[in-house]
């Protein structure tokens, strides 16, 4: 009953694959085009501002400097950036948009690279936000009788960038590995606590924890001075908690059935 005719010759298509830059642009847009995404970004900004307001009241006048507004603003942001990293990946699966995304771009590794690029840019932007908030509050401090010094250890800016990029990529790695929003967020948030509890209970874990517990290895990045040993510890911990989840997650996402 089958009828087959010679397949017609299909004219070669002039269409080209979307560039990685274009895909990254699309992924950046996805970070802000839903209410959840917008509010996450707004919350990140608000928390930085709120912390600075508190400092304006509690810090001694002499301590109200640009540097002292800048450094602490990194910490709350670094808590929420991983959530952004996680959501950027897992939303495709929980909202099932992966079906459209991977149909339009079947080379999934390009989509994932674009997502990593987008959250990396978001992390860099967050450092600019920290700088802007610190600048505004330094001016406010001057106006309200604080020292308002503009001195800034320049090394602290690249350190901050590494800090935030590592945070967001760690989130993305967890998201990619687990492909499930609540699971990835809970695992990510529990990890430092688990380290604290375990290394408190088991003496033998204390030394490895100094190399593996990201909450302690990343701490020096919030300052302007990082020693070679601290860089080494940071590298080891990031290899374990960023590079490995990203690699394993990529392997999984490329093969996983999309339905």
């Amino acid at each position, binding site marked *: *009953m089958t009828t087959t005719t010679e397949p017609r010759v299909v004219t070669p298509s002039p*269409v080209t694959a979307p560039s990685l830059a274009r895909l990254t642009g699309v992924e950046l*847009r996805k970070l802000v*085009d839903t209410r959840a995404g917008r509010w996450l970004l707004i919350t990140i900004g608000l928390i930085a501002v709120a912390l600075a307001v508190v400092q304006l009241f509690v810090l001694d006048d002499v301590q109200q400097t640009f540097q002292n507004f800048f450094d602490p603003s990194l910490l709350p942001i670094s808590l929420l950036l991983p959530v952004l990293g996680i959501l950027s990946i897992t939303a495709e699966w929980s909202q099932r948009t992966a079906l*459209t995304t991977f*149909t339009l771009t079947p080379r999934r590794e390009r989509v994932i690279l674009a997502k990593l690029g987008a959250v990396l840019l978001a992390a860099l932007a967050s450092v600019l936000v920290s700088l802007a908030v610190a600048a505004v509050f330094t001016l406010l401090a001057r106006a309200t009788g604080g020292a308002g010094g503009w001195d800034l250890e320049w090394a602290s800016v690249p350190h901050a960038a590494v800090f935030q990029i590592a945070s967001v990529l760690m989130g993305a790695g967890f998201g990619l590995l687990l492909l499930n929003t609540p699971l990835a967020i809970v695992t990510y948030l529990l990890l430092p606590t688990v380290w604290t509890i375990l290394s408190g209970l088991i003496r033998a874990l204390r030394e490895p924890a100094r190399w593996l517990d990201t909450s302690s290895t990343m701490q020096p990045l919030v300052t302007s001075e990082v020693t070679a040993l601290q860089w080494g510890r940071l590298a080891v911990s990031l290899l374990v908690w960023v590079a490995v989840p990203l690699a394993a997650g990529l392997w999984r996402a490329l093969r996983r059935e999309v339905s």
Partner: protein
Amino acid sequence: MIAVDHLTKRYGPHAVVEDVSFRCEPGTVTGFLGPNGAGKSTTMRMICGLTPPTSGTATVAGRPFRQLPNPGREIGVLLDASAQHAGRTGREALTLAARTQGVDSDRVAAVLDLVGLNAVAARRRVGAYSLGMRQRLGLALALLGDPRVLILDEPANGLDPEGIYWMRGLLRDFADRGGTVLLSSHLLREVEAVADRLVVIGGGRIVAQGGKDELLAGTGTLVRARDQHALRLTLDRAGLDATAGTDGGFVVRAEAGAVGQAAADAGLVLTELRPAGSGGLEQLFLTLTAGASTKEAVR
């Protein structure tokens, strides 16, 4: 042009799709029919590179889907209208797809207009859409890149009768302009009205395929009498293979002449005697897929 060759998908020992092969030619609408769980969606996902097949191959426009550089420009796909981010507006979902494909943003307004989503609907979040509106949005997404091939899984789901009629016209027109359409459905009537060719699948296997007319032709004669019971006895006595139709008549595997003669010999009053046509297709569909419907794809 869609070519599917010996596609098989197993989950453990359970075969959801087994040795499925068919072709969809330019200028035709192919109806992919089967009860729920027959393997239609899995086959379509394999064609689109979303599900890796256990064995077999599928190509679209001469290439495996995953090797197409920018598939949206060549193949419009609608696999699940509900697979949209609830928090995005309809227009935004289309804009993202347009940017990915490198399609001019004018196309977004054009396809919204084409599928009948007005400006108010386009500004609403997809979470607030009815299923029918999601189907329209899904069709808009599929048509966005001005493709030559359409792959649509149950596109009429949730559409009102007017919407179904409109979609038929759209697909017919698309095929008449040289496009290739593969659409699936578990509802015969829906496909019958628009398809040129039919591929019927049951329990993961193809049970019939061919031109619609060809499939319909061999399905016999529909006969109805005032005394249905007597008609049944008469047909049995005459050795004519008859099955009770869904609406009271019998579908007989014989020509109208033979059936009429048997009835006349028995002195029966016939109220209807005609080629089975769509009723026959329904019969065919029910017989071919009998028992298969209960085998829902378990995964």
